[in-house]
């Protein structure tokens, strides 16, 4: 997984509440069993004029020339709600987004971000609104910094906004760690748990093998 330490970049405000994963990547845009080939379908329902089409809607923020090269999204409350599809995060990543700043996130989306190198930053809505207003005055120059090492967002005017992130999530993002590798370091604990639990709850483990068709 790609490491994240600090990023200064163009940020795009998309402040509406409850942006769901269907809006981030519509079902119809997930055309193959794959984690890639999704960037084109990102926000497709808003980004293009017609369903399934590719004619850009000039009103949508990511289509505006001033927001070219956006790598940070400023979002509204309950960002990433709805379907658990990780494709939403894969699409954001492939598009170039490396951090999403929002007042709150859906729990599944939040976890998916951390496992794919996108920093989910929680800041109060009024602080995000202030940052967005600064960005909007001239997006290409009014850049936002997400500093994960110091757990800070630096607004275009230089003001610093501290955010909280779980220690393990922070470490995984900073180091680009693979969670499976990390967990397999605890293999002895897992084995010990299973020995104990098989005695306590044998019915959990005594399932018939799959019928081979």
């Amino acid at each position: 997984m790609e490491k994240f330490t600090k990023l200064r970049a163009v940020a795009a405000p998309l402040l509406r509440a409850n942006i769901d994963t269907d809006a981030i990547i519509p079902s119809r845009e997930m055309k193959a069993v794959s984690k890639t080939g999704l960037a084109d379908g990102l926000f497709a329902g808003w980004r293009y004029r017609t369903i399934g089409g590719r004619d850009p809607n000039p009103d949508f923020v990511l289509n505006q020339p001033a927001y070219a090269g956006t790598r940070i999204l400023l979002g509204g409350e309950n960002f990433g709600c709805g379907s658990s599809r990780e494709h939403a995060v894969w699409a954001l990543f492939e598009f170039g987004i490396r951090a999403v700043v929002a007042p709150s996130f859906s729990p599944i989306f939040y976890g998916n971000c951390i496992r794919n190198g996108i920093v989910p930053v929680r800041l109060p809505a009024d602080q995000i609104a202030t940052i967005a207003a600064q960005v909007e005055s001239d997006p290409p120059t009014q850049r936002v910094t997400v500093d994960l090492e110091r757990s800070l967002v630096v607004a275009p005017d230089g003001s610093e906004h501290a955010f909280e992130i779980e220690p393990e999530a922070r470490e995984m993002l900073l180091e680009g760690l693979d969670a499976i590798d990390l967990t397999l370091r605890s293999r002895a604990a897992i084995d010990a748990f299973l020995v104990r639990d098989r005695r306590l709850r044998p019915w959990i483990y005594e399932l018939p093998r799959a019928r081979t068709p």
Partner: protein
Amino acid sequence: MTTLFEKLWMQHVVAELPGGAALIAIDRIFLHERTGSIALKSLRERGRMVVDPARVFCTMDHIVDTFPGRGDATRMPGGTAFIVETRAAARESGIHLFDVRDSDQGIVHVISPELGIVLPGTTVVCPDSHTCTQGAMGAFAWGIGSTEAEHALATGTLRVTRPRTMRIRFEGKLAPGVTAKDLSLAVISRWGSAGGNGYVVEYAGSAIRSLEIEARLTLCNMATEFSAVTGLIAPDDRTFEYLAGRRFAPKGERWDAAVAAWRKLRSDDDAQFDVEYRIDVDDLAPMITWGTSPQHAVEVTGAVPTLERSGATREAYERALAYMGLSAGTVLADLPIDAAFIGSCTNSRLSDLRRAAALLRGRKVARGVKAICVPGSMAVKRAAEAEGLHEVFTAAGFEWRESGCSMCFYAGGESFGRRQRVVSSTNRNFESRQGPETRTHIASPETVAASAIAGRIADPRRLAALH
């Protein structure tokens, strides 16, 4: 002093991790062809194995067609590849597969309880947000992403940050015509679609004790629409009766030992929750959504609220009204509809179909209304047909389908169409959820049936009184 959730948590801690997280043992993993296929494929590409395939299950529910005589062909563009690849990956890894033509096929959250896969006291994960449904059985069951599913498959564990706890007590007795679906819409409209964010929500109280298992599943189903980590209901005799003899449930002595252990799975009388709410259910009425978030819900006899009373921001409110083609003060019961849908992991079980059929019997769907009923599993379908319910639905003018998610969501295949107004027993009324620009109103199966007959949004209690 301990809550039910804390008991479940402590029984599954393999190791403590820094920052209040823990490595949690996972008892059951469920996959489906839409999001599970990618997890199995990616696991194989990374050279890892499924650690205990006997505890992993997979169904074909999301993309599979629901038309009679279906096979691997599906109306969703590219959909067949998902089915074929999932089948190959499932066979290769030796997990249980409920394939397109399997007699136990159905929607994951319908068949898991039905087959006794989810049990009280288990941890269950699935790369699907409505996994919270299964918390109704007294399990810690929650939706995850595909990468986490890979982790669970490869290690039998997940790294989880411990959620906070909330309890909602439902006290009193539900009036006739008011259902678990109305309870969940009442909760979300009262405390908002982010109201449960960060919490495991235990549903408790006298009204929950008297709910049948299928209704409890409906209630827990929409915990994710409340943004909760999951919903949870303490298991009781109803739960044990429901599970006894199911295909994957323990049998004989093992069953007795399991039930003895499950009886301890309840919050202690002095348990402390981070947040507690209470709802008196006596006065609740059937609910229906007017907007594009599940929190945009009012009584079926009500009207679209003003901005001030909607609980939404101005932008969200105006956007929702424009999308739905409504304005403040519009009385919902007057709105003509184009379609009616009964199905989904929320409301597609036998009891749902029975209650809808009771209203449809001897009546006809209004002219011009497209009406569809999709049983949640093949077992539900067989049981319904044994009672003759399919004849009631088809005589009324409903299509009667094979089981699956069907038009609960739009994936480029079948859709209700632009600006079509649909009353639906599903769980999400997001923009374009059931088709491009389709206008979804979520309600109970009773309200869907009554509305289908009236050709406009209708209060099922009035129809019941006539009957």
